[in-house]
């Protein structure tokens, strides 16, 4: 099993969710995060005082998939989160040792 963690542009979240739904991925966890990479921050002005804000809002999405589905899921996320402009985000893939469903105690891919 693999964990896929993707940092994407907030407005692309619905597209990514729909794309993953198409390939049968039924669950995910998302969080609103802030960060920066190659994309520079934006400027804010309050009463004439200009501030450069380094940290830009992004959405972090976490899903767990079977190992053989990981490549397909990554590709789907990449396609659906793509705009071609700087700041589209990053995708990380990690190995997962174990998954346990709290309600039933099921383990492994049954629990995904």
């Amino acid at each position, binding site marked *: 099993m693999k964990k896929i963690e993707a940092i994407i542009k907030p407005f692309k979240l619905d597209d990514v969710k729909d794309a993953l739904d198409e390939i049968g991925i039924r669950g995910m966890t998302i969080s609103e995060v802030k960060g920066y990479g190659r994309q520079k921050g934006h400027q*804010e*002005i*309050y*009463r*004439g*005082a*200009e*501030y450069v*804000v380094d940290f830009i809002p992004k959405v972090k999405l976490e899903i767990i998939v079977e190992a053989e589905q990981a490549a397909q899921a990554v590709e789907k996320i990449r396609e659906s989160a793509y705009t071609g402009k700087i700041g589209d985000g990053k995708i990380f893939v990690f190995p997962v040792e174990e998954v346990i469903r709290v309600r039933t105690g099921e383990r492994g891919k049954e629990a995904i």
Partner: protein
Amino acid sequence: MNTGDTAFMLIASALVMFMTPGLALFYGGLVRSKNVLSTIMQSFICLGIVSIIWVAYGYSLAFGPDIGGFIGNLDWAWLNGVGTRPGPYSSNIPNLLFCTFQLMFAVLTPALITGAFAERMKFSAFLIFTFLWSSLVYMPVCHWVWGGGWLEKMGALDFAGGTVIHINSAMAALAAVLIMGKRKGWGHEIFHPNNLPATILGGGILWFGWFGFNAGSALAAGGSACLAFLTTQVAAGAATLSWVFAEWIFQGKPTTLGAASGALSGLVAITPAAGFVSPVSAIIIGLVAGVLCYMAVLAKSRLGYDDALDAVGVHGIGGIWGALATGLFASVTMNPHGANGLFFGNPHQFVVQATGVGATMIYSFVVSAIILKAVDITVGLRVNIEEEVQGLDISQHSEVGYSL
């Protein structure tokens, strides 16, 4: 006695009272979320302190029988003899009502100062400062201009309080900024306003209340009040536009905070002129006020003063411009009880206005500075560094504004 005027002045008094919580929201939205309540509290508590001072001796010092043109005596302490009969300031309404109306101005003025030292003043020190400042600075200056004092005798025009309220509070604000120093992190940390919608709403409440402030200063429901009402509206509108367009040109974006700040600068500037100038003059006064105050706010950062919420930039510069503009644009065709200004052939009025501005600035700055120094030596003005980082809401009041 006139029942129509009495009804009008009762409502005007309530409108002016509403400006203080409006100001609390205006300032409250501009600070960081850890200081929202402490900032609101500094305005709100003035409704408590000043109301009591006013009845005890404040009204008497400001409006009681004159001592040497400088201050009133204590004959009216505890409102002795101030009753439902008309007083010396207005034959059409009860003296008690004039006292109530003026009380609301006295409440608002120290609250205006709080914008300068926001996010760093100890609450106990603030209470002592407000008590002393109201007694030693507000009451005398109010007496000079409205209570039969020397500026009034000289013929200075101040329809609704440009010198008494705005220049006066701004000079105290300047003294506070210089004596208290900058907030920790000034210049390299971002001081994000926590709630600009609250600020805009607060600005709207101030604008609304300002009709009571300016139109009410006519002390009668007549033509003069109508003139002041309209000049207030158009000056605020003009200044809203000029501030927004100035920042659009110089910094690339028109901002909502710029719109609210511009409105406030126009309201401040028209205050002394409201019942003396034509609506067209009011538009000019407003247009200039927006740009001037915007420039002042920009200059502040370059000069390195941490006037946190621009009490000096808006109330000081706007107030000075308004008081001088009254000496330029005042016209007896608009108000026969006023005077002509420089543009209507009377340069003397401009000199009188400038004298009023200068005297208020010097007196307020010097006495405010002495009060601040005295409070600093005895109880200390600033919270300690740990409390400042933690935020004044928790450290001074054990509350938080938002629990999200």
